[in-house]
């Protein structure tokens, strides 16, 4: 599957208009002659046929060598590794924050359906999910950096610099999680087994936390697993605005520059990550719900 993925992404890159050599040599606005462009293409091996280039790349990848960036000559593996580490920080912190906010709120909201509290929480979730990331980022920057002066605008890759991007990512994520978790918990609360448990006199908090939540956990884990996959791909907007050197920005810059080796390495990396995350999610699902079997 990874082989097919890498082939098609390589093919699409090759078919897309644009040329890494032109992007590199003309980005300042200075024109460059065709002869120089051809020389540089030959030097970078871009004058070779598509299949030759793909096979050479594949052979290198199979030996752990993802090549060097067309843009700056750095090792692709190193660039992706640095970007992924920073994205891991951002992704994990924002996920934790989103869960800390959305899980308790969704439980309370589900238990107190159609109350003022539920409606207010639902409205907030709707708004947070609707506002674009870049707008949230700039608003938070304005609030915390300009008005409250709690953080510098230029923070960089530090723990202090992590706060605002984490909150920016967590807000819409919490809104999404809230709506989905709430719906799942309500669905579980309407099941017959809950009626039965209550009829037997089990206390409400035990009904909720030992039974309902446990049964809802499978769906919640699936949602979280999908979110992790998406987060690990990086958030270009957040990373650019807050100057967080994550993998999303790296890849977007590489796409703009037609930096094929980095894009290919990213596709391979993300494909592998999604596979792993999918497997882990399925295993957790099975562990939580014995009724589920993994088919052979």
């Amino acid at each position, binding site marked *: 599957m990874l082989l097919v993925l890498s082939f098609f992404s390589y093919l699409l890159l090759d078919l897309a208009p644009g040329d890494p050599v032109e992007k590199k040599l003309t980005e300042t606005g200075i024109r460059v002659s065709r002869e120089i462009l051809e020389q540089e293409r030959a030097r970078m091996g871009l004058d070779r046929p598509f299949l030759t280039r793909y096979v050479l790349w594949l052979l290198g990848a199979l030996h752990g060598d993802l090549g060097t960036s067309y843009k700056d000559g750095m090792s692709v593996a190193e660039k992706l590794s640095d970007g992924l580490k920073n994205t891991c920080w951002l992704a994990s912190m924002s996920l934790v924050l989103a869960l800390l906010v959305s899980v308790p709120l969704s439980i309370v909201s589900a238990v107190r359906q159609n109350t003022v509290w539920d409606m207010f929480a639902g409205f907030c979730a709707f708004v947070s999910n609707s506002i674009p990331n870049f707008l949230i980022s700039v608003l938070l920057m304005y609030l915390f950096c300009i008005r409250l002066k709690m953080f510098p605008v230029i*923070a960089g890759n530090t723990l202090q610099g992590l706060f605002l991007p984490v909150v920016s990512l967590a807000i819409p994520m919490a809104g999404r999680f809230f709506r989905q978790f709430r719906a799942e918990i309500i669905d579980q609360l309407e099941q017959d087994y809950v009626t039965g448990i209550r009829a037997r006199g089990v206390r409400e908090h035990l009904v909720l936390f030992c039974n309902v939540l446990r049964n809802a956990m499978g769906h919640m884990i699936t949602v979280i697993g999908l979110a992790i996959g998406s987060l690990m791909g990086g958030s270009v907007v957040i990373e650019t605005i807050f100057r967080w050197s994550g993998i999303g920005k790296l890849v977007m810059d590489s796409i703009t520059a037609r930096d094929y080796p980095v894009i290919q390495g990213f596709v391979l990396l993300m494909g592998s990550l999604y596979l792993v995350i999918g497997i882990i999610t399925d295993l957790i699902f099975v562990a939580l719900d014995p009724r589920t079997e993994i088919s052979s």
Partner: protein
Amino acid sequence: MKKSLLAAVLLVSGILAGCGKQAAPAPAAQTAAQQTAAVTAAAEETKAQGTQAAETTAAAPAEETKSQGEKILYAAASFAYPSLDVHKETYGWYTQIYGVSEALFKVGPDMGLIPLLAESMETEGTTATIKLKENAAFSNGNPVTAEMVIRNYQRLAELNARFSFLGDFDYEAVDEHTLTIDTHNPYPTLRNDLASPETGIMDLDSTTDFDTDPICTGPFVMADFQPVGDVRVERNDNYWGGDVKLDGAVFYYMQEDQPKLLAMQSGELDCYNSIDSASLQIYLSDPASYNVVQIAGTRLQYGILNENRLDDKVRAAINLIIDKEALAAYQEGTVVPATGPFRPGAAYGMVSIPATNPEKARQLLEEDGYTPGADGIYEKDGQKLSVEICYYAARNLDAIAILLQEQLKNCGIDSVLTVEEDPDSTYMVTGNYDIALYCMIADKAGDPLYFLDSTLSENSNESKAGGFKNAECQAMIEELRTEADPAKRAELSVKCLQLAVDENAYAYLGLFRQTTVLKPGVTGFAEDIPFDFYGIDANTDKQ
């Protein structure tokens, strides 16, 4: 089984969550004290306000290694390169912007060439004799010698394809501070080319890492370099050119406009250029807090009218319809209407372009056999007059395309917009357009040949695709390759451009302004020089 599975999952989750390294703190600035600055506006062509004294508070991030009270300039850079090697790619632009490297010559505010490391240059026939300044030295104290300059040019020729022509010349070090360059053929733009930032001089013997710490001659030396990231420079205490006013500078790599604006407002930045229109309005509305300096730059927005697809009268009509003032007004101060491809006042760009005249445009179309249809669009032989406008989404060309479409429609010409990701691989070479929008630096170093050669020469892809072919123009371009007299060069350039203008081969739309915003008291950030590759120097100051 379940418990062991769960334990495994938690372990993996823990590893994933903790897989980020503790990032090292980014190079940050020291905390500045509250300052009172008297603002004086630096005068240039269209300088904005800023003459009142203002009390400003700068609240820059804490700096770990610099002590309080040092004069550090904090600037934002829209680009950042992976290397400081002056000779590779266009990396020399930023090495020069950071104040680290210098070339033999420098382009001044009036586009004239100022000797920098060179004392003088005399040309006799094909041989140029360059005398270096005797006190010119690298940051390590080593003198800049003729031999070292020659070796730099030879290295540049090897590493940079755009400067490979330097490898064809013959060099000789006459003495320690004098060198000759034999170009074999007349080369009137040699001095201009030797002002390019890529021709900066490095100490090739003492530099151990060209990518991160080249030893150059500039007023600053590298203190901390992050590839494609922030850069911190310190004063070169051995600077040959005299006192350096700043103790250092920090260049933050910031691509987005809003964070730059917020950083200026919070006091974390002292200056930056390449300002978007929205931020510009905010700065202009608060002259007490911000100095805005705007001068016409060299980056040109223009349209190519395809002679292979549009007849003479239609092209003429299009040029009469285009309202450049309106296009510039929409771009809210970031662009000036172009009166030619070069900056207003440049001797080699003084062409005469007819003013906007929609009525005359209609007249021309009607003379050409077009008649207005029921929908107001001109028709001829049952075919509506419709043009294809090709553009790419950068440098405001997308907005210009839409505005042009509206302007043309108001005068009876319909149009279709086609956007391409990469113009240089598509419409600019295929010629599949009626009007092609493009943006380029028209003036590299105070000489017109580069632009004329790129756009009007019969060998250029642009003229081939656009159908421009004029023997007289070509002859003048060939003459420009050897003509050394500046006045004669200007005359040839103007005549050549006028031919293209008269043929309605081009529509010169707008010139980007070089806009710089500075905190009160900050001066010398190359705000008066129209090129993108100058930044700080020994005279940059922050009160």
